[in-house]
C-alpha cells in the first residue's frame, strides 16, 4: 500500500513537471503544444549526449554530474522551445485553432523523427545510473536516488511558483493569461513574455527528461509521446491553465495509475489513464482547481 503511494507520487512528480509546461503554454495562448512531450525527449537526449561526451564519471560524482547536465539540458530545451515558438507557433497566433493544432502535431512529428534520424531509432542506455541502497520507510521501499530526483522536482516546482507569483515577469504572465490585448495596451511586451513561457515550460520538460533518463536507464525517440498524453491528462485533472493544478494533477495521476496498474494489471495502465481522462471530461471538465471558463467571442 505505502509502496503504491510512494511510487505513484514519484512517477507523478515527473508528470507534474511535464504538465506544468503544457498548462503554462495553454494558460497563456490557449495552444495545446503537442510537441511538449517531445521536448521532454529532447532533454533526455541532450543529457545523454553530454554525459556520453564527458565519459567515465565516477559513481560518487554522478549526482553532481547529473545535476550539471540537467541544467545544461534545461537551457538547451528552453532555447529549443523558444525557436519552436518563433518558427511554428508565432506566425499562426491569429489564425484558426485547427491550424495551430495541426502545426503542433507537425512539430511533434518533426522532432521525433528528426531525433531518430540524428540518434538512430534504437533505444539508448543512459551512461549515468543512479544506484544506492534502498531503505524501507513505513513499508515502502525508497531508494536515495528517488528522493534526490523528487527533491529536485519539488525545488523546480517551488521555484516556478515563486517566479510566477512573486516576480514582475510572473505577474505579466498571469496578466496575459487573463487578457492579452489589455496587456498590450498596458505596455506589457506580450511576445517576450510568451517566449519566456515557452522557455520555462520547455526547460522544465527537459529537466524531467534528464531525470527520467537517469532513473529508467534507457531512452528512445518515441518516449515523449505517451508522457505528453499523460501530462495533458494531468493538466486536465488539475485544471488546465492552473499551475498548482498541474502539480496536483500530476501527483493525482501518478497515484491513480499506480493503483490502477496494481488492481487491473500493468498492461492496462495506459487504458486506465485515458479512461480516467474521458470520465473526467464528462463530469468535471474544468479539473480539480480549474475555474469555469466561458469561451470569449
Amino acid at each position, binding site marked *: 500500500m505505502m509502496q503504491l503511494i510512494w511510487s505513484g507520487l514519484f512517477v507523478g512528480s515527473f508528470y507534474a513537471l511535464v504538465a506544468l509546461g503544457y498548462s503554462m503554454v495553454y494558460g497563456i495562448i490557449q495552444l495545446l503544444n503537442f510537441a511538449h512531450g517531445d521536448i521532454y525527449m529532447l532533454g533526455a537526449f541532450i543529457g545523454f549526449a553530454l554525459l556520453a561526451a564527458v565519459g567515465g564519471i565516477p559513481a560518487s560524482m554522478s549526482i553532481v554530474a547529473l545535476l550539471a547536465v540537467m541544467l545544461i539540458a534545461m537551457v538547451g530545451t528552453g532555447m529549443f522551445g523558444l525557436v519552436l515558438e518563433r518558427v511554428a507557433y508565432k506566425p499562426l497566433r491569429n489564425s484558426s485553432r485547427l491550424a495551430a493544432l495541426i502545426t503542433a502535431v507537425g512539430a511533434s512529428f518533426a522532432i521525433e523523427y528528426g531525433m531518430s534520424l540524428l540518434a538512430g531509432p534504437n533505444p539508448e542506455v543512459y551512461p549515468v545510473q543512479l544506484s544506492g541502497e534502498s531503505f524501507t520507510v513505513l513499508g515502502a521501499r525508497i531508494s536515495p536516488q528517488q528522493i534526490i530526483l523528487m527533491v529536485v522536482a519539488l525545488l523546480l516546482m517551488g521555484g516556478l511558483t515563486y517566479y510566477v507569483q512573486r516576480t514582475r515577469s510572473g505577474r505579466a504572465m498571469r496578466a496575459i493569461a487573463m487578457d492579452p490585448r489589455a496587456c498590450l495596451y498596458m505596455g506589457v511586451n506580450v511576445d517576450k513574455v510568451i517566449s519566456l513561457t515557452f522557455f520555462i515550460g520547455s526547460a522544465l520538460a527537459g529537466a524531467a527528461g534528464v531525470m527520467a533518463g537517469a532513473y529508467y536507464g534507457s531512452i528512445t525517440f518515441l518516449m515523449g509521446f505517451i508522457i505528453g*498524453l499523460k501530462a495533458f491528462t494531468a493538466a486536465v485533472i488539475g485544471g488546465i491553465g492552473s499551475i498548482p493544478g498541474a502539480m496536483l494533477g500530476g501527483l493525482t495521476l501518478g497515484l491513480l495509475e499506480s493503483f490502477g496498474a496494481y488492481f487491473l494489471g500493468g*498492461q492496462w495502465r495506459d487504458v486506465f489513464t485515458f479512461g480516467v481522462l*474521458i470520465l473526467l*471530461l464528462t463530469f468535471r471538465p474544468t479539473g480539480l482547481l480549474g475555474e469555469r471558463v466561458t469561451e470569449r467571442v
Partner: protein
Amino acid sequence: MSTESPQSPKRSKRSKPAKDSALASGPYAEVDPPSTWAVAAETEYDKQRAPKVSYRQDSLATRLLNNRQLGWVGFAVAVIAPLIFVSTFAVGVMTNAMIFVMLAAGLNIVVGYCGLLDLGYAAFYAIGAYTSGVLATKLGWPILLTIPAVVVGAILAALIIGGPTLRLRSDYLAIVTLGFGEIVRITANNLTPITGGPSGIYGIPSFSIGPLDFNPVKNPHTFYYLVLVVVALAVLATSRLGRGRLGRAWRFVREDEDAAEAMGIRTYQTKMAAYIAGAIIGGLAGVLWGMKQTAVSPTDFTFLYSALILMAVVLGGMGSVPGIVIGAIVISALPDLMTGIGAWRYFIFGVLLIVAMVFRPQGVWPYKARERPGTRRGGPTEGPYDESSGTSAEVTA
C-alpha cells in the same frame, strides 16, 4: 488638429447612409433580409449579387479543376488503372490506396468540413476491422452480415468519445481522440481471448455473389473493383453531404462556432453528426481492410497511421474532396513506390505540416465555395438547420 475638427462631424454624417446601404447589399443581404429591407434595397440587391458571385475571374486551370465531370474522370482513371498495371503487386498497392482514400474521405468530414481535429481516427478503422473480423472468424458470421454490427459499433464509439468532448473546446477533442486511439490499440493488444492479442486475427473470409468471387488473394482484380465501387460511393456520399444543408452547417461551425450557434445551428448535434459520419466511414473502411489483408493485428492501427490519414486531409486541402483524394493516393502510394526513405518520410511530413499551416493553410487543392444564384432557391427562409427542405435545392449545384 484644429483644422480637422470641423470636418470630422460632417464626414461621419455623410458616411452614415452609405454604410446603411452597404449593410443591405453586403453580407446581410445573404441571409434574406426581412421584407421591409428587401423592398427598400431590392434594385441594389439584385444588381450587386448576380455578377459578384457567378462571373468571378477564374483561370482556365481552376475552371478545369472545378469541373463537375472531374469525379467521373477520376473514376474512369481508377477503372482503367488495373488494366494497365496488371501485376498483383500493383493492384495490391492500388487497393490499399483506395481504402486509404476512403479513410481520408471519412476524416475529411470531421476535420475538413467541421474543423474538429481527430488524432485517433485509426481507432474507428480498428473497430471496424476487429468487429467484422471477430464476428466472422469466431462466430462464423458471413462477412456482409457483420456490416450492420460494424456501423453500430462505430456509432457507439463515436458517442462515447464525442459525447463528453464535443461540448468542450475543440482542443480537448484532439487530445481525447489521441488517447482513444491508444486505448483501442492497447485493448486489442491485451484482450487476447477475443482479439487474438498481439498476433491478431487470421483467416477473415471474403464473399462471392454468383460467379463473382471477391477473394482478394485469388482474384485481386475483382476485389479491387469491389473496393473501388465502395470507395467511390463513400467519396460521393461525403461530397454530397458536404454540399448539402448539413455540410454548410458544418462549415459554419468550423468558421465560427459562436456565430453558428447564434444563427440557430445546434452546434453540438452538428458536430456529433460529423463525428458519427466520420466514424461510420472509418469503420466500413476497416471491414474492407480486414477482407483485403485476411488478417488484422494491433500494429496496423498506431498513432502514426492516424497521423498519416490526417496528413492526407490537411495537405490535400481540408474540405476539398478532389484534394483529399489526390492527397490520400499520394501519401499511401509513395512509400510503396519509393522504398528507402524510411524515417525521413515522417520527418518530412512533420515539417510539411508546419510549412503548410504557416504558408498555405488551405492545402494544395483547397475547397472553394461554389454557390451560384440558382442554388439558393430553397433559401434559408425555413429554419437554418432543417434537413428536409434544403437538400434538393443544394445538390443541384
